[in-house]
């Protein structure tokens, strides 16, 4: 078994093992073991990646290619570059943290963990695929468990949110499907065979007319998952209703599929289309950055705040991708990682607060720092990291994006860049409002005075996320260089 396929096989085996478990205890232990194995594999992958990269300068390493549907030239083709490695590591971390956070899952635990792992299988598969078809398959596998996860284990208007989320995402993937087919049927433009293989298609000069037509489809198809304005409305409702671990996984990992897909498929394969449509989508993305931030100011539900914040932060990812600049791209990938970790952390914390106080309304919360110092402190730290404080991953990402975006002397793009940069102030406003309201100030509700402190598994989950956030923030060089090195093939397309 090759190093990459394991990422699909191990979760599947874990799922099979879960089928035979009974009760919460067994289920969570099996999931934990499975997730820890995944984390170990991820670490191993990073090490092997650096080793392999030293002797192998292909775009993708660890490639493997098995014919699947010969007639369509569909292959099970896998391979990774620095970007996918980074995102795989992110996924393993968030999944493991998610398992810890779900340690006390009262209702249908087995099914919960199975769904969670199905989702992660889809995500892994998506990140390792270099075949559009396989990628699409995994994409949908990753999205559909959300319906059950939100619908069964969620809270509030969960049925509505689950349906909305699923339909919007699947609607997007439907649009994407047209785009994928369009790319496929133009992949013989240079006279070769039709192919789904990303690397092969990237060598083909797809006719401009086709690129113009299919770029928006592909872009929107993926970007909806990346919460592109104005297709983001599934995300606040979805996050608000989802159980903690699902919010974590969804915002932390699943939404990254959007940005990754935009980059890996839409922009890599249709560079001319990207340049043609750039002006339009970059307006949407920049609007999303500011819009999401302002949207977050007004919300009173913790999860809504975070969901809008995600719209803003992921808007920044899309914005960075559309600036067509290597530094900004680097920033976009780091932002994906950073946002993944941070938002997962936020959702975990929100889950802990909610689990204790049973409310997410910030007007009903206050002064919690005194009662749960650990959670409070981490909340403040996460807030600070979220608003781009140096020393945390968010800063590294944002600076790359801003510096990169600024490398284009075009006034139009400058204006949008400054607009996007200004979001850091608005971010500070809503984050501080949040932290100030719920953690600081006097205790608003005396019932809260005896709430339990954080438990060991909660702390473990939190630390799992915190460590990489700080690591990226303090020593960004290795990550930044690893990603940067993988960006060259992309930049050739648009320059």
């Amino acid at each position, binding site marked *: 078994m090759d190093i990459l396929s394991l990422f699909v096989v191990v979760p599947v085996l874990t799922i099979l093992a879960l089928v035979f478990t009974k009760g919460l205890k067994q289920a969570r232990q099996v999931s934990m073991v499975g997730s820890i194995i995944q984390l170990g594999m991820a670490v191993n992958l990073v090490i092997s990646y650096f080793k392999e990269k030293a002797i192998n300068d292909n775009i993708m390493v660890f490639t493997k290619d098995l014919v699947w549907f010969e007639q369509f030239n569909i292959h099970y083709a896998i391979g990774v570059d620095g970007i996918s490695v980074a995102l795989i590591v992110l996924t393993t971390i968030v999944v493991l943290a998610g398992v810890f956070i779900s340690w006390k899952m009262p209702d249908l635990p087995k099914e919960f963990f199975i769904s969670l792992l199905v989702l992660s299988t889809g995500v892994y598969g998506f990140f390792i695929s270099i075949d559009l078809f396989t990628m699409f398959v995994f994409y949908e596998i990753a999205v559909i468990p959300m319906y059950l996860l939100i619908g069964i284990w969620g809270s509030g208007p969960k049925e509505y949110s689950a349906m*909305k989320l699923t*339909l*919007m995402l699947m609607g997007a993937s439907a649009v994407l499907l047209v785009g994928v087919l369009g790319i496929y049927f133009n992949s013989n433009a240079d006279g070769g065979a039709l192919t789904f293989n990303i690397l092969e298609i990237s060598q083909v000069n797809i006719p401009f007319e086709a690129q113009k037509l299919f770029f928006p489809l592909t872009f929107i198809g993926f970007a909806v998952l990346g919460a592109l*304005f*104005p*297709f*983001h*409305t*599934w995300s606040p409702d979805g996050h608000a209703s989802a159980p903690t671990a699902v919010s974590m996984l969804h915002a932390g990992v699943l939404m990254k599929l959007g940005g990754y897909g935009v980059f890996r498929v839409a922009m890599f394969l249709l560079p001319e289309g990207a340049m043609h449509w750039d002006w339009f989508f970059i307006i949407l993305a920049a609007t999303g950055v500011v*819009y999401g931030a*302002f*949207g977050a*100011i*007004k*919300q009173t539900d913790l999860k809504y705040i975070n969901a809008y914040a995600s719209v803003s932060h992921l808007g920044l990812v899309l914005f960075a991708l559309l600036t067509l600049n*290597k*530094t900004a791209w680097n920033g976009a990938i780091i932002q994906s990682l950073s946002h993944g970790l941070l938002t997962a952390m936020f959702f975990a914390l929100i889950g802990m607060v909610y689990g204790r106080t049973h409310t997410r309304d910030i007007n009903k919360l206050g*002064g919690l*720092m*005194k009662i749960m*110092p650990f959670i409070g*402190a981490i909340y*403040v730290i996460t807030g*600070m990291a979220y*608003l*781009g*404080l*140096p*020393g945390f991953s968010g*800063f*590294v990402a944002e*600076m*790359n994006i*801003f*510096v*990169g975006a*600024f*490398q284009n*002397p075009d006034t139009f793009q400058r204006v949008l*860049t*400054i607009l996007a*940069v*200004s979001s*850091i*102030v608005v971010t*500070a*406003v809503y984050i*501080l*409002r949040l932290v*100030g309201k719920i*953690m*600081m*100030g*006097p*205790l608003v509700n005396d019932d809260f005075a005896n709430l339990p402190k954080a438990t060991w598994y909660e702390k473990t989950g939190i630390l799992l996320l915190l460590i990489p956030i700080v690591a990226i923030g303090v020593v*960004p*060089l290795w990550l*930044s*260089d690893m990603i*940067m090195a993988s960006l060259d093939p992309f930049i050739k397309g648009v320059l």
Partner: protein
Amino acid sequence: MDISYTILIPLIPLAVFLLLGIFNQKIKPAVSGYIGVAGLSASAALSFYTAYQYFFVVGKESGIYKTIVQKVTWMNFTDTLHIDMGVLIDPISIMMLIVVSIVSLMVHIYSRGYMKGDDGYTRFFSFLSLFSFSMFGLVLATNLFQIYIFWELVGVSSFLLIGYYYTKPSAVSAAKKAFIVTRFADLGFLIGILIMGYYTGTFDFETLNNPEGPAILNWASTSFMGLSVITWALILMFIGGAGKSAMFPLHIWLPDAMEGPTPVSALIHAATMVVAGVYLVARLFPMFYFVEDGFALNIVAYVGGFSSLFAAIIAITQTDIKRVLAFSTMSQIGYMMMSLGVSGYEGHEGVGYMASMFHLFTHAMFKALLFLAAGSVIHAVHSNYLKDMGGLRKYMPITNITFLIAALAIAGVFPLSGFWSKDEILVAAFEHNTLLYVVGVFVAGLTAFYMFRLYFGIFWGKDTQYKHEPHESPLSMTFPLMVLAFITVVGGLIHFSEYVSADKAGFEAHLNIPLALVATAVGLTGIILAFVFYKKENELPSRFAHAFGVFYKWTFDKFYFDEIYLFVTKKIIFNLIAAPIAWFDKKFVDGTMEGIGNKTVVISKRIKGIQSGKVQDYAFSFIAGVVILALVFIYLWTN
């Protein structure tokens, strides 16, 4: 020369911070106090050692203090642009090291007494260490991005410390305000950095500040709206500096920041962090000076001058002693800015630069002293307000004396340190800009007046009856007062101009006797007026207040700037932007998506009638379908 040991200066407080932060719950308060003081002492010792090495052993090379840089790449942006982390040693960074380490150490020691018995004792020390780390890092920064990084970190330390009493809503909102206002200013800073990075291709101070270097020589190559982009960058960066240094109109956070514990006010909001803006301008002084003939520098000068006047006027009417000191700080920083703004570059021309740095140094000492003394008073009477004080000289002799020394220093009375530095500033202003000179002198008078209003109000004035008899603070608190008082007395005697100058060559500064006399006279007038008004409780102040009428009220309400900001944030941003966006999002964006869904269901309901259950209707549709298909495909759509 190997200066890598200087990296320890910031790293030791960082280690202390991590230690105290992570084991917050486990460490006994007393121990954490000692750890904090010990850490800072080590840093201070290293700072002094570095200063000694630099100024007297290795720093000077052919008459010029060289800039020593050691750095490593932290992150790469492009082939040319990257963020480095390292240390940069030159006269002003050394000077700042000294300032920060002395004040910080004193505040650490002081806090052991001041904060005794507080719940968050360990937390407090860990935050102080975090701040010290950040401030050292800022001071030692080698490039724009590094300074920005630590700039943000001091901002957050400030946030944490202002909000130290986090259960107090006023403290929380003050902390938020401070952070958001400075963050807003930092936006300017960041954009400035981006512009600078793009057009000069570097973030390094060395390259940027080289008068012969490309950054300065090519300033005119690109322009935007009539000004060089570099000028724009400098202006934007100055906005960042102005935010942190509480220059008008970004000053509103500073008075509120007094919600933090008093040692914090002394350290952050008087001596060190708030002068970061001055330091930034000084750090980039060659650029400010050479690019577009000092256009940006003029802005610095006027903003500084105006702020100093504005703050001094407000300070007169305030009744919260910490707020008076806060406005005083703002006023004095305006002074420094003004001084930088009127400075030249070479030799004696650069007296403004030197004076500004000198004043930064002396001001840090006496303002920290003032705050700590005020803290001592507050500690004793448990109130911030002048009305609750009076006649305290009998109870707190040491505090009284040290406060008096500091007040005299800030009023510019010979031979205290404030006299010397203020004099140099006025000299610089006199030589370059008469208007600003007049402002400077007037502000000097105002300063003397409000400081002594404060002094008399606290230590003399009415004989207040105290519930608990106030008593002198413990040694841990008075010791720092005495140390700082000592520096305040002797600090002026340092030949500052030999060490710190714009062109780094050093020059001989002379006392300009006439100007000194004018300044002293004005200062003494202020003191005497205050004496008349406030030595004994009397009717004069309220009569004068009446005489000024509306103007007094405006001043008392700080010219309604808080209200304006509140209006902008609450009414405009919150109600006119965020609320409509939230509404728009719900109704339109989400509404559209919902609408698509709902419409589908509605359509589905509407058309249910065609499935009528009547087999004849079905047959009719069948036939109609056939007929339509036949008509369409035989006659209309035949390709």
